[in-house]
């Protein structure tokens, strides 16, 4: 069974003359345990697809099915929030400035109905490679990589099956990027997670993903496997150009 089925997805912002079509007729599916990449330049609609899935972009049409459940509008069930979680791009913006790490994780666990919150907070911090001494710190006392680890711990708190990663490393410097990517790879192996990862960096997607979709101007121009990517077998001219650019860089 495929975990995520997306068919003819249109997402737009605004009405009438102001209407901007961010995503047009996107279709793809992600199997259980697979890691799927969405690549494309800025403004190509990659992140918007994730926001439509999570209900953060309310105006969409088409079909989104998660674990056999068809979604409508922007309302999502409690089960959806438990099964699907998202890691945001900018760890400096995704943590509440006045909440300590303990508050962030404790509240999330409380919302998912867990009782043994203290033990779980400690375990989550261990799982993402942060020790207990980070537990009562505030975001401004953490580095970018540490913040992103907290954000990942928050996403994992409800023990989801699917993790949506919205450029999780693009705001971090290169050495920290590698640490976070390795952490994500390890967590996926341990917890049998399904990933959808948005990135503009082909190297990152090549490292993390099994298959990928290339997007341009809101449309998916090509879906291919990472093996094909490595062999430079892109068929669409835009994908070829993207590949060349990333090798040159």
């Amino acid at each position, binding site marked *: 069974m495929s975990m995520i089925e997306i068919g003819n997805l249109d997402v737009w912002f605004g009405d009438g003359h102001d209407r901007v079509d961010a995503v047009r007729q996107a279709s793809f599916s992600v199997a259980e345990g697979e890691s799927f990449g969405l690549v494309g330049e800025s403004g190509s609609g990659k992140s918007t697809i994730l926001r439509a899935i999570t209900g953060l972009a309310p105006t969409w049409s088409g079909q989104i099915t998660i674990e056999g459940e068809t979604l409508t509008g922007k309302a999502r069930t409690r089960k959806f929030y438990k099964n699907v979680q998202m890691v945001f791009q900018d760890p400096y913006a995704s943590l*509440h400035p006045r909440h300590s790490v303990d508050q962030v994780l404790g*509240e999330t666990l409380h919302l998912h109905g867990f009782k043994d919150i203290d033990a779980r907070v400690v375990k989550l911090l261990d799982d993402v490679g942060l020790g207990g001494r980070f537990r009562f710190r505030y975001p401004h006392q953490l580095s970018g990589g540490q913040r992103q680890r907290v954000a990942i711990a928050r996403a994992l708190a409800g023990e989801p099956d699917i993790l949506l990663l919205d450029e999780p490393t693009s705001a971090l410097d290169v050495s920290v990027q590698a640490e976070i990517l390795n952490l994500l790879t390890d967590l996926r192996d341990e917890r049998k997670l399904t990933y959808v990862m948005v990135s503009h960096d082909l190297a990152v997607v090549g490292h993390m993903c099994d298959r990928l979709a290339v997007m341009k101007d809101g449309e998916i121009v090509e879906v291919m496997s990472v093996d094909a990517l490595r062999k430079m077998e892109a068929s669409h001219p835009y994908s070829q150009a993207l590949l060349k650019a990333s090798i040159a860089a």
Partner: protein
Amino acid sequence: MSEVTLRQWLLSDAPTSRRHARLASLYKGWLSFRSNTMAMFGLGILVFLLLVAAFAPLLAPYDPFAQSLSNRLQPIGVEGHLLGTDSLGRDILSRLIYGSRITLYIVALVALIAPVAGLLVGTVAGYVGGWTDTILMRITDIFLAFPRLVLALAFVAALGAGIENAVLAISLTAWPPYARIARAETLTIRSSDYISAIRLQGAGALRIITKHIWPLCVSSLIVRVTLDMAGIILAAAGLGFLGLGAQPPSPEWGAMISEGRRFILDHWWVATVPGLAIFTVSLAFNLLGDGLRDVLDPKDSGQ
């Protein structure tokens, strides 16, 4: 652990418990507040005012209502009456000391009513949006369009003169700016990633507004309240001066100025002394507000 002083414990960057973390961040706020001399000066005046109000019966040399017509309009520095006496021979210093209670009472009540009402209206309007926003903000606009003192006058005229009604009238005219600030802050916060993140954990609107938006709005509101406090004291004094606030013989400072107005040319101290008291407290609140802004503004301290 044995050699750690209290100061080191408070400044540790790896707190060991929830209480420790909270105390540490409070202590850091206090340190940055303490380095602001003017704000400490303001705080000092207000603490002094609080102590004076608390111990008024011990400090006041006379009963503030005791009249002595043979002793009326004595100048400053006359023996037994440090700040002179008013037109009924009452000791001005004693009246000033008891009047600090009324001033604090007004300040406390207005500070409890107006910002809370503004915070509620502003955050709900900002977070929910749509029709709710339109209706709430138009009501706010209507209140904002009235001149403040005139609206307060109308309320007092309708409700009857007296200190409680004066407070209510001032609060009713003071909340709209707070609603505006809270809404503007909410609009910038609501689309941020950390609000999206908690929504994705299934949190409802009530939890998001009270636990995630309020803490970020409160600091700018506190700053605004302390800066407005001077205006509120002056408005209360103005209502007292016009005879619509505290009623005689209550030693409210505005009412004292109003009584002294008749003799202002020959016996200037009767109006000037309570005027100086209002000035000092207003200035203290302004200085405190300025210092609090440096400590509490999330844009500075968040990073």
